[in-house]
């Protein structure tokens, strides 16, 4: 290189040493390496997260896992299965029957959105999708109740089966309301808690009513 001819270096200075790049500990997220993992791992991770949330609903404690890592897979699965199980009800051509699939879907999602909006308008500090996640996951006891009701109705549709269904649906309704209140009540301003809890009560009551009044053809 012609320009370097002017640089006066008396002698060649050997440059040697070690170049070490400090490698920190692996970050717990490993976000950038999930592309290479097998598909089974990806799916299992999401499934485990969903399953952990189901367990949280079963034994409601004040844990923030449900709130922090929200996802809507669980609510979607629950809503679809509940709506499917509510099909096949009595639908005469003259009278109207039970709710259709779309009606159940709309009631659950629109109801959850309205309750979330209500809680935010009243000054709640929970985020929109976190609240949707909690309300959706807490539909799980009612889905279990629907399953039990259908099984009981297979055995018969008399008064005894109605009483059993009433007890089961009532217990699950209480469980749902308590579970969702346990998760959501902390994020509300203290003097408005009842104003936020009441719509949740109404929401699960309507779903319980739909489950209880399900009559097969």
């Amino acid at each position, binding site marked *: 290189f012609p320009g370097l001819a002017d640089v006066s270096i008396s002698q060649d200075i050997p440059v040697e040493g070690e170049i070490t790049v400090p490698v920190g500990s692996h970050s717990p997220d490993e976000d950038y390496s999930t592309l290479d993992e097998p598909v089974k791992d990806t799916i299992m991770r999401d499934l485990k997260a969903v399953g952990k949330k189901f367990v949280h609903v079963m034994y409601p404690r004040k844990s923030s896992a449900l709130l922090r890592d929200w996802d809507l897979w669980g609510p979607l699965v629950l809503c679809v299965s509940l709506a499917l199980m509510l099909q096949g009800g009595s639908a005469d051509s003259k009278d109207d029957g039970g709710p259709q699939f779309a009606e159940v879907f709309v009631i659950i999602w629109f109801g959850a959105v309205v309750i979330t909006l209500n809680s935010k308008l009243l000054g709640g500090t929970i985020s929109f999708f976190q609240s949707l996640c909690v309300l959706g996951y807490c539909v799980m006891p009612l889905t279990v109740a629907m399953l039990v009701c259908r099984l009981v109705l297979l055995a018969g549709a008399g008064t005894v089966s109605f009483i059993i269904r009433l007890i089961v649906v009532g217990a699950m309704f209480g469980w749902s309301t308590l579970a969702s209140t346990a998760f959501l009540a902390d994020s509300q301003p203290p003097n408005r*808690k009842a104003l936020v809890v009441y719509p949740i009560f*109404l929401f699960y009551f309507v779903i319980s009513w739909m489950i209880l009044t399900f009559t097969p053809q």
Partner: protein
Amino acid sequence: ITCLVMYLFAEFDDAANLLAANPDATTISIDEPVEIPKNQHSRLQEPGREEDDELLGTDDSDKTELLAGQKKSAPFWTFEYYQTFFDVDTYQVLDRIKGSVFPVPGKNFVRLYIRSNPDLYGPFWICATLVFTIAVSGNLSNFFIHLGKPTYHYVPEFRKVSIAATTIYAYAWLVPLALWGFLMWRNSKVMNIVSYSFLEIVCVYGYSLFIYIPTAMLWIIPQKVVRWVLVVFSLCLSGSVLVMTFWPAVRDDNRRIAVATVATILLLHALLAVGCLAYFFDAPELDIPAPIIPAHNSTNKVVLEQ
């Protein structure tokens, strides 16, 4: 609009996350003092009307058409604007419900309870509760009335929920809109002392529907006399709340128009109650403990049709 709504929610998410990270942070809403302009306004009136002003509502609201008072200063496309309509505590909502069920004679519901802080929480959730109460009670009542009949097959009658929802929400929003428009029109012709904002009228109507919730639950009792007594009773209570609210707003007007307005308000209210009773609740059968005759010959049919 969906993008705008999602953007607003995203913004609010950030704020909510900030608040969640620091839960001790309190949000303070600053109310502009609305007492001062009220007093100024009342001093400008004739002295004879001052005693009415004690009983009547505030009248500074005709300056801000759809807004109540000067405190709604956020632009309407922000979330905070709508939060101002939900600025009520639990005890305030309960007080307003109590005021609608036990009307104090001579006192105005708006002046006493709303006090320039109309909320949308009460009207919305009272209407929602009423919709489901009427649908569920109607279903239960029909079930009990027709229980035991061999030809009866229980249906949940879910379509009626949407009909109930449409009717009740239309009543709770369109009638106040019409009434507010009518009052504004009359205000331009006759100088009224009292005028209400749209939200205050929606509030009064919403809370006045509360009495129908226990009434609908009691309508399950399959006795005609009981049902009609309940209709009259609840109509008296909620009708008196409405009359005491709106009579001061129209009484300066032409006598006939004032009476006609109040009569229309009561008539629509009665129509709602009677219509719900007629549509959602089947008529109870007469208590004839006769066994069901399996064969219908023609003479029986003639007797029945008489």
